[in-house]
C-alpha cells in the first residue's frame, strides 16, 4: 500500500516538524487535502446532460462554503470546495473522482449524487480509504459500515420511506386496493421493494397493479388510464417531480379521486403541487424530513430565515422553489459540523469517525424533531420522517415522527 506509507511518512514529518519547533500544537495531524490553512473537499454532481437539474445542489454547497469562509472558515481553515460535472454517467464519475483524489488531492469526497455514480466509485474510494461522505442518494446500500467503512449516506433511504407508507396503509386502510406507479430505475425499484417489504406476506394481496414508466416518456397519460381501469382506491406515486405533477393533474382531469401518496422527492409546493394545481393536490399524502422552501408555513421559522438570508446574499436570484437548495444547504451544514468536530485532527480516519458520531445534530433545514444520529454501526444519518397531508396551499404534518432504518442487504 504505497498510499498508507505516504501518509505515515507525511504524519511522521509533521510530528518531526512540530517537535523541532517545540510547538505546543503537536497534536495537529493531517492527511492529504488538509493543512493549517485549508481543507480540500471534492464533489461530483451532474451540471450537464439530462440530470442537470441536480446541479443546483452543487452550486448551493459551493455557496454555503463561501459563506463559511467569509466567516473565517472552520477552526481557522478555509474550505476549498472543488466540484466537477459527472453528467450522471458512471464512467465520467470515475474519471472525475480520480481527478479529485489523485490530482486535486482532496481530503474527502462529499455528497456525490446518484446511485449509479456512487456505486461506480464506491470500491475505488474504499480501497484508497477515502471517505465517501454523505452520498446524495437514498439507496439502502450506503448504510453498510462492515463492508464499506468509508461510505456513509445522508438522506433517509427510499426503502425506509416506502415502508412507512406501507405500515400506514396496513393500519389505516387494511382493505385498500393499491396500485403503484414507479419510475423504472434504481430509485423507483427501491420504493417498490420497500413497499412490498413493508406490506409483508399479509399485505401483499393489497397490491393489485404495479405500473412502471420510463423517464424518456413525454407524458404518462396512458399509464394513468391503465391504472384507473384496474380501479384501485390507493395510488402510490413513486415518481420524480415532473411525472408526479403530471399524475396528480391527470387523475384529477379524469375525475378520479383515489388516495394518493407521493414520494418525498416530489413534494415541493412550488415545483410540484402548484404546477399540478392546488385544487388537484388536495388530500395528497407524503412524508418529509426537511422543510420546504416554498411552503409559507416556515416563513417565520428561525432555521429557514437563516436559509433565506443565505440565499439572498450568496445565491441572489436563485429559484427558491427548488428543493435542491434546501437539500444542498442541509448536507453542507452537516459536513461543516463534522469538520468542526474533527478539530485539528484532520485525518481521513478521524473525519469518518466524527461523521459516525453525530448526536442529535439538527441542520437549519430539517423538520422540527428530526435529528441526525450516527454511530459506528449506523451509517444512515437521517432516518426519521413525518407524514403529512396537502391542504390548501401547504403541507400539514400529522402523526409522530417515525424512525425507519432499513439495514443494507
Amino acid at each position, binding site marked *: 500500500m504505497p498510499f498508507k506509507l505516504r501518509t505515515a511518512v507525511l504524519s511522521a514529518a509533521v510530528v518531526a516538524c512540530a517537535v523541532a519547533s517545540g510547538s505546543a500544537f503537536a497534536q495537529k495531524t493531517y492527511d492529504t487535502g488538509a493543512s493549517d490553512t485549508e481543507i480540500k473537499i471534492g464533489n461530483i454532481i451532474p451540471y450537464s446532460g439530462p440530470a442537470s437539474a441536480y446541479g443546483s445542489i452543487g452550486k448551493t454547497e459551493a455557496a454555503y462554503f463561501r459563506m463559511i469562509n467569509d466567516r473565517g472558515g472552520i477552526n481557522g481553515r478555509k474550505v476549498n470546495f472543488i466540484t466537477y460535472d459527472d453528467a450522471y454517467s458512471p464512467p465520467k464519475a470515475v474519471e472525475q473522482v480520480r481527478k479529485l483524489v489523485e490530482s486535486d488531492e482532496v481530503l474527502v469526497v462529499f455528497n456525490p449524487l446518484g446511485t449509479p455514480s456512487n456505486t461506480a466509485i464506491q470500491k475505488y474510494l474504499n480501497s484508497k480509504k477515502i471517505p465517501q461522505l454523505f452520498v446524495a442518494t437514498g439507496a439502502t446500500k450506503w448504510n453498510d459500515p462492515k463492508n464499506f467503512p468509508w461510505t456513509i449516506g445522508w438522506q433517509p433511504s427510499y426503502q425506509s420511506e416506502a415502508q412507512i407508507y406501507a405500515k400506514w396503509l396496513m393500519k389505516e386502510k387494511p382493505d385498500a386496493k393499491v396500485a403503484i406507479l414507479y419510475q423504472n430505475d434504481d430509485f423507483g425499484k427501491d420504493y417498490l421493494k420497500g413497499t412490498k417489504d413493508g406490506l409483508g406476506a399479509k399485505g401483499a394481496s393489497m397490491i393489485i397493479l404495479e405500473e*412502471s414508466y420510463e423517464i424518456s416518456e*413525454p407524458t404518462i397519460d396512458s399509464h394513468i388510464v391503465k391504472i384507473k381501469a384496474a380501479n384501485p382506491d390507493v395510488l402510490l406515486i413513486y415518481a420524480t417531480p415532473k411525472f408526479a405533477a403530471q399524475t396528480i393533474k391527470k387523475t384529477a382531469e379524469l375525475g378520479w379521486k383515489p388516495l394518493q401518496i407521493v414520494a418525498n422527492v416530489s413534494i415541493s409546493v412550488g415545483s410540484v403541487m*402548484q404546477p399540478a394545481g392546488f385544487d388537484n393536490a388536495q388530500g395528497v399524502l407524503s412524508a418529509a424530513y426537511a422543510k420546504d422552501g416554498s411552503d409559507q408555513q416556515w416563513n417565520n421559522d428561525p432555521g429557514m430565515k437563516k436559509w433565506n438570508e443565505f440565499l439572498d446574499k450568496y445565491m441572489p436570484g436563485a429559484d427558491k422553489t427548488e428543493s435542491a437548495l434546501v437539500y444542498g444547504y442541509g448536507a453542507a451544514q452537516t459536513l461543516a459540523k463534522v469538520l468542526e468536530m474533527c478539530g485539528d485532527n484532520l485525518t481521513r480516519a478521524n473525519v469518518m469517525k466524527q461523521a459516525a458520531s453525530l448526536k442529535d445534530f439538527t441542520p437549519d433545514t430539517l423538520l422540527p424533531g428530526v435529528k441526525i444520529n450516527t454511530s459506528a454501526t449506523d451509517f444512515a444519518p437521517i432516518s426519521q420522517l413525518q407524514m403529512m397531508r396537502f391542504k390548501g396551499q401547504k403541507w400539514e404534518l400529522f402523526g409522530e415522527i417515525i424512525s425507519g432504518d432499513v439495514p443494507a442487504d
Partner: protein
Amino acid sequence: MELFANQVLAGIATGAIYACMALAVVMIYQAIDHLNFAQGEMAMFSTFMSWQMMQWGVPYWWAFILTVILSFAGGILIERLLFKPLAKAPVLTNVAGFIALFAIVNSVAGLIWDFTIKQYPTPFGSSPFLGSQLISTHQAGMVGVTLLLLAGLYFFFQFTRIGLAMRAAASLPESARLVGINTSWMIALGWGMAAAIGAIAGMLIAPVVFLEPNMMGGVLIYGFASAVLGGLSSPLGAVIGGFLVGVFENLAGTYIPGVGNELKLPIALALIITVLVVKPAGLFGRPIVKRV
C-alpha cells in the same frame, strides 16, 4: 373493451403532441433535406420566451403571436449566422453542428429559467371535451390547431410561389437555381418556418408535459419517428404518423403481456422500422429513385 377505447382516445391525445412536432420536422426536412436535432430545444426556448412574456403581463394571444414572429426571425438568424457558413461542409459536419446547437440552447435555457417545472397556461381550458374525460378541451384544441397547421402547410407548398420554390430548392437545388430561385434564402426561410411551427408545437405541448428545459427530449424522438413513419416529404403523413404512433404505443403498453409496458417505446420503434423496411419512404412519402 372500455379500456381499449380509452387507450385509443388517450393515444390520440398524446399523438396530437407527436403530430405537432412531426410537422415541424417535415418543414425543416423540406427545406434542408435533413433532420435538425436541435429542433426540440429551439421549440422549448420559444416556449420559455412566451412564458416570460406572460410573466411580464402580456396576454396569452399577444405572447403567442409575438413568440411565433420572434421564433421565425430567430430561425432565420440561426441559419444565416451558424449554418450558412457550413453549407459547403460535409453533411455529417452539419449534424455535429445540430448537436452543438442542442447543447447550447439547452444549457442557456437552464441557466436563465432553472430546471424546476413550470405551469403553462392553455387558451382552451382543461375541462372534459364533449363529455369524455379522456380528452380535455386543451387536447382537442391541440388536434384542431395541428389540423389547421396542416391545411396551411398543404396550401403553402401546393399553391404558393414561395412554397413551390422551396420544394424545388430542397429536392433539386441545381435546377432550382437555373430557373432563378434563390436557394440559399429558401433554406433560411425553411429554418424560420420550422422554428415558428416548432414554437407553436412547444406552446401547445407545454400545458400537458409542463415547461422545463428538458421537456422536448422525449417529444422530439417521437416527432422524428412519426414524421419518418408518415414519410418525411408529406405533412399529412407526418400528422397521421403522429396519431398512429400515439395509439400504437398505448396499445402495446396495455396489451402485450410481460414486456409490453417496459418496452413501449422500443416496440413502437421496431414497428416503425418494420414499416420502413417494407416501404422505405414511409407510408405517404414519395418513392425516391436513385440514379448513377
